[in-house]
């Protein structure tokens, strides 16, 4: 109750006291155990009602076709670019990336005016081997200036940050070519770096950048990319929905199919804005964790890791038993707001 205390408040209180006592006495025989609505000190009551509600989920299914991307595909569509060999013998990987305004149905029924690389969230998963030459033909097809800022080694001119030259802020209708060698090996990311930065990232301008070591990583059966992010659909600088690969609850409603004994490698990137941390928890299993993927020796054997913004790492695990297994942010609030998925493990 607020500090304003009117005659009506007084009457309410008086009357409620009456109602409380009146119905408590008059109706005690009528109320079921754990179901009494007539007591007057609710905060002190402990009830053991059965918890039989629905599980958190969105209602309906987003129109993936209209969105132009599907998290099922994003999981595994590694983009090695248009490959050729330079006179020096170095492998050249060329990419065409365009920044576009696009309305994306982020949860069923809600279209969010997103900013995207190539019309999808997250943007293309750029994958190369250490030492390859990367050449990105970036053009801005939106009505705001944007850039591509890669994590990794490169010249200042190629940093994609305002003030670093023409690539720092590519104006609408203009283009720029980012060119650098892929190094160091590891799991990296790229994102727009134009002010206001939080908005430019949160609206969808981010993607994964994987640099494989020269000798490659030990072979596994399945590799997948998971980008953890959120959407602030009402622009109050707080996320309303959370997800891996953009669409909340997608892998809860469409479990990822794997086999018993298959070795799985997940490239996990956190690009969540507005919240300080994100996390990943795997059910009924443990994984080897390679922070930033810059070492071939795992740093930890665990079932839960925490990532701050732009932190990333590689997870490797195998399921021993068939079944349905959850994976989700152990920041459980994020999980119930969309960042929850399932592995369906079969023989």
């Amino acid at each position, binding site marked *: 109750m607020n500090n304003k205390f009117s005659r009506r408040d007084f009457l309410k*209180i008086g009357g409620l006291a009456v109602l409380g006592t009146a119905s408590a006495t008059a109706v005690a025989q009528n109320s079921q155990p754990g179901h009494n609505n007539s007591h007057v000190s609710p905060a002190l009551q402990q009830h053991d009602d059965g918890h039989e509600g629905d599980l958190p989920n969105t209602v309906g299914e987003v129109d993936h076709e209209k969105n132009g991307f599907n998290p099922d595909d994003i999981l595994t569509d590694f983009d090695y670019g248009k490959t050729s060999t330079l006179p020096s013998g170095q492998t050249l990987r060329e990419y065409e990336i365009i920044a576009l305004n696009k309305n994306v149905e982020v949860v069923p029924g809600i279209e969010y005016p997103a900013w995207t690389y190539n019309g999808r969230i997250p943007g293309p998963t750029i994958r190369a081997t250490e030492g390859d030459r990367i050449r990105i033909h970036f053009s801005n097809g939106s009505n705001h200036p944007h850039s591509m800022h890669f994590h990794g080694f490169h010249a200042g001119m190629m940093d994609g940050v305002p003030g670093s030259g023409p690539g720092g802020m590519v104006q609408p209708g203009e283009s720029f070519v980012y060119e650098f060698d892929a190094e160091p090996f590891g799991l990296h990311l790229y994102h727009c770096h134009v002010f206001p930065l939080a908005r430019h990232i949160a609206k969808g301008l981010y993607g994964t950048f994987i640099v494989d070591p020269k000798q490659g990583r030990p072979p596994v059966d399945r590799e997948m990319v998971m980008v953890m992010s959120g959407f602030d659909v009402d622009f109050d600088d707080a996320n309303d929905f959370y997800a891996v690969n953009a669409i909340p609850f997608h892998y809860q409603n469409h479990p990822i199919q794997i086999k018993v004994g298959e070795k799985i490698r997940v490239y996990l990137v956190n690009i969540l804005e507005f919240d300080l941390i994100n996390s990943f928890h795997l059910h009924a299993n443990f994984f080897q964790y390679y922070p930033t993927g810059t070492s071939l020796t795992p740093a930890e054997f665990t079932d839960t890791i925490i990532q701050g913004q732009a932190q990333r790492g590689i997870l490797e695990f195998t399921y021993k038993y068939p079944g349905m297994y959850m994976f989700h942010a152990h920041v459980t609030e994020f999980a119930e707001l969309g960042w929850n998925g399932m592995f369906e493990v079969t023989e």
Partner: protein
Amino acid sequence: MTQQPTQTPRFTFRTFILLLLPILLLAGVIALFLSTGGGLNLDSAAPVEGLDVERYNLTQNVIELHVRNTGPEEINVAQVVVNEAIMPFTITPNTAIPRLGRAVIQINYPWSYGEAYGVTIFTSNAIAFGVDIPVAFETPQPDSATFWGFTLIGLYVGVIPIFLGIFWFPALRQLGRRTMTFLMAATAGLLIFLGLDTLAEALEFAGEVPSAFQGIGLIGIGAVATFLLLDAISKQQTNASADETQRRLSIAFMIAVGIGFHNLGEGLAIGAAYNVGEIALGTFLVVGFIIQNITEGLGIIAPVLRDRPSIKNLAVMGLIGGAPAILGAWIGGYTPSPFLAVLFLAIGAGAIFEVIYEIAKLIQKDTTREPMPMTVFSGVLAGMLLLWVTGLLIK
């Protein structure tokens, strides 16, 4: 009225056309405006939406929200979040809610007794509307138990104090004319205080009424219409009988009606408060509020102290003044509606102010026989102070 054929305006076809002409022109202007926009750019950058959660209903593992679209256009309910969890929901009759249309959203959620919940409703335009459930407990359903509970509240709030006040009748009859005038003036003071209080409550509720229903305008309509209607009834009675006794009795009845509406408003507020869980225990508050409301009974009998009203009349007046509190508690408890609350409180305010006007006329009659300006002054002030001071003691 005298009839003079030459001057009687005749309703001809020509008159009809002339009456219709501005309406036809209006239709044309609207059509033009709708098709061209009238040269104004009326596209807003963001959609303007309004969604009011009029009430919530909690049953075991279910949260039910009764919502109304108070925005200018149709809206679509897209997702519902309960305490930081996106929850599946069903909505009837439709996810699309037309302007001023209503819908019921049902969420199967395992809420716990005594805890607080916040529900956020996202429309398809990503506009969030929230409702707080400060204390979750099973919403009283219209069964015999809560029915009896609300009835008891009404009895304590309305009926008992008023009858206690009426029981002063035999004693007060012994008083002299001047004291009776003082009591009348005190009644006027009481009513002024109650009238202001009722008006303030109406204004408070008006803030909760969806803007499309224009709460403040509703207060004006309710109050002014009641005032004028009671005034007309009273004038009719004055014309019908010149009997002073009868007239004072009808004023007493009107005071009872005014106080009845006031108590209806109080009952609504109490019932509604019970529904949202604003509960606190305080026996002394109940006692205090019986003390304060006893003055309402006193006010009802003040005009008829010098007469011999029948016991039946006194009883009926007591019921008219007090019983609406029971009705109010039922309505407020089962279907709380700020719209109804504003309407009833406005009617109450109108009735009370009209009765003050009637009492003023009675006092004026007394004072023309025997001037006693200080009696009137001190009476009115005493009446107002009585409510103010009892209020202070309680709070």
